[in-house]
């Protein structure tokens, strides 16, 4: 019997232009938080925001939340963060 040639069904990952950039922390950095509104993370996220404000005070310049956990943040939200903050903490929960 001749050999069988099988085609690989696994999809090649799409190439992305996104690059991770290391953020160097300093006390004068402006921080935004962007919660994804996942149902399981309300308590965690609330506490995280409290701790950030408690420990970093005025550095926290915006606390935002997406309406739809599973969709990308609306452009206006991303623009707001980009204009007001140096870094954003995003997520989380499943």
């Amino acid at each position, binding site marked *: 019997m001749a050999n069988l040639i099988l*085609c*690989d*069904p696994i999809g090649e*990952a*799409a190439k992305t232009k996104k690059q991770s950039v290391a953020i160097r922390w300093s006390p004068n950095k402006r921080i935004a938080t962007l919660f994804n509104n996942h149902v399981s993370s309300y308590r965690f996220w609330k506490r995280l925001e409290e701790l950030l404000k408690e420990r970093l005070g005025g550095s926290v310049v915006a606390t935002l939340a997406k309406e739809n956990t599973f*969709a990308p943040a609306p452009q206006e939200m991303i623009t707001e963060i980009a204009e007001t903050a140096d870094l954003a903490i995003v997520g989380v929960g499943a």
Partner: protein
Amino acid sequence: MKTIEVSSIEEAIERAYTEGWTDGLPVVPPELPLVQKGLDYLRVDPQESLGVIPPKHGLATYEKIVTNCVMAGCRPEHMPVVIAAVRAMLQDRFSLNGVQATTNSVAPLVIVSGPVVEQLGFNSRWGVFGGGSRANATVGRAVRLILWNIGGGYPGKIDMSTMGHPGKYTFCIAEDREWNPWSPLHVERGLAADDSAVTVVATDGPHQIGTGSGYASAEEVLAVLADSMMTIGNSTMNAGGDMVLVVGPMTARALADRGYTKESFRLALQERARKPVRLVRQCLFYQPSHPYHWSHILKDPTDPDAMVPLIRDVKQLVITVAGGMGSGTGFCSFCPGWHQGGGLACTEKIIFPN
């Protein structure tokens, strides 16, 4: 095209497991001549992509789609149906990334409607959710293998569904054309009556409802359906979104004979499928501060007697007619959806090659 060479059918079947190409069920070995036959039928560029399947963000090229269709057991003529389903799942409002990754148990339910149902032998009658039809079984299976192999929906790794459901192996039904007394699903969703289409909705598994429509009044049928649909732990009751009611042909006929159109049927269910706040608030699945929580749609959510509707907007209730005739029990099936942010009904026309 990446290929693997094996020396026997047995080795091919086992290799599919060791390569991680299947979720547990054996697959048809995706031999090159079978894949080529599918591509020749479709007359497409194998490297053209329909988009990116999340969460792994694999490219849904025709080559990969056809390969997965072959593994599922599809004949070439089934492949345009699968392609329409993939296009529908890639619509933004379906939010496939979330459907694939959520801890919820939803899976994309594929509903086929139009002349293709008879042309390709889809089962729209007895055992519509079960076995008995190659078209239903293989189209649903191909969709799952695509979500697995291109999208990376691996349980416990990317697919975090805590319960899952059997529809994660194959989940495809067809609307019955002859026994549907109302307008076809795809016509309601903007296509022509002689078009064939696929509608996808992310849903729980089907919950059977015995309506007794062979003996009962329309009011009794509506009461049974409404009560069976509005359980307080289901996602749709808590957070809205689209849901599917598969109306058995006896029940559809009974309602149509009593003057119900699909529109008036929807309104009647919306009016009846409501539960008081004092019961619904016992479920803390969604927190009241969540934007989808039912409390946001009530004037006074603190009033224990205020009524929470399951169907927030009548357009969210997808109705299709399918299933077999029975003795008068008038079985129907309800599939709760995910929530108002995703898994929403998306329809695509099936386009066959010229």
